[in-house]
């Protein structure tokens, strides 16, 4: 028999006690079905599933996390569970690969922290996260004419320089456009959003183009205004050449799940 440990996905509110049944059979990481860990006097539960201990011991995990395929399969399974929860109730996602020795250890943790969880869950109830990304499209590529410059009055050298200048201007225009887009998008978003987190612009092999990602923000928006938010944000950057806005979501409030107690200091603003 394989020894297992408990992988914790999220804290969720189970106000009417229906969550266990709603999730029944939902596979988590390593395909094992998820279940709930409860404590007395609280509606908030931790959603867990057993995972093979050998994959989640420190050394093994260390090795696995460098394996992009493994990371992807765990990330997608984690997300599948979060999505299923978010479709039904308020959810506080936990960081990827939060693992306890057994359910009893999870229960202990919930018992200690349930007040902080409850308060954050209340804050986040009926709100969704939207991702808003702004891209500068590769102006240099598109501006290169397929045929030689038409201005016959220029020497080849001058023609080349003039062409380069045109490319540079197109690129500068695109970045200026992106700045403008960022301002407009932010103004549109602020009309609805209750919070914002700025992620680092995406780069590297996993980043999808076309173009260069310059803004990668997450907004927390009341569920009732979610569609208006999306529509207004998409519209905000219309008509700006070389700029593309991409909206992802709605997500469970991953980017906003951090507990107040984890913040360095309580704000002094009233």
């Amino acid at each position, binding site marked *: 028999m394989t020894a297992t440990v408990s992988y914790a996905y999220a804290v969720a509110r189970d106000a009417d006690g229906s969550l266990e049944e709603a999730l029944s059979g939902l596979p988590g990481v390593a395909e094992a079905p998820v279940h709930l860990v409860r404590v007395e006097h609280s509606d908030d539960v931790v959603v867990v599933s057993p995972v093979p201990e050998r994959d989640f011991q*420190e050394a093994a995990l260390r090795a696995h996390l460098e394996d992009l395929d493994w990371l992807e399969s765990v990330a997608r399974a984690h997300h599948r569970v979060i999505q299923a929860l978010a479709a039904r109730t308020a959810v506080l996602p936990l960081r990827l690969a*939060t693992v306890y020795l057994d359910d009893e250890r999870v229960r202990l943790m919930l018992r200690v922290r349930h007040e902080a969880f409850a308060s954050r869950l209340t804050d986040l109830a009926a709100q969704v996260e939207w991702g808003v990304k702004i891209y500068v499209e590769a102006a240099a590529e598109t501006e290169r004419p397929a045929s030689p410059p038409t201005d016959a009055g220029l020497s080849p050298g001058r023609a080349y320089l003039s062409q380069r200048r045109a490319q540079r201007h197109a690129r500068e225009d695109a970045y200026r456009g992106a700045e403008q887009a960022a301002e407009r998008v932010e103004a549109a978003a602020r009309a609805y959003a209750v919070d914002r987190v700025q992620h680092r612009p995406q780069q590297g092999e996993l980043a999808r183009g076309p173009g260069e990602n310059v803004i990668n923000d997450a907004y927390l928006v009341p569920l009732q205004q979610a569609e208006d938010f999306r529509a207004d944000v998409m519209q905000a950057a219309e008509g700006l050449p070389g700029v593309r806005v991409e909206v992802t979501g709605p997500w469970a409030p*991953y980017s906003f*799940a*951090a507990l107040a107690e984890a913040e360095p200091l309580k704000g002094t603003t009233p």
Partner: protein
Amino acid sequence: MRAASRPEATPEEPLPQRQIALIDLLDRLLSGGVVLTGDVVLSIADIDLVRISLRALIVSISEQNPSPWHAISAPTGDDHDR
């Protein structure tokens, strides 16, 4: 009367064919979510390791928004002894 382009029922689960970009997911799973110290203390050094070993692919943990383990920059086989 109903809009032609709208599905009859709002699906609760996302459509399986519409797969979310891994990078968008990792942005959230590696730098969002509640951070708890589990029993397997992959915590500190190991998440840092994710950042280090995959940094060519994903640069997920934002610099303006350093994670709790940021201060503990464990020497994780990054091969630069200086």
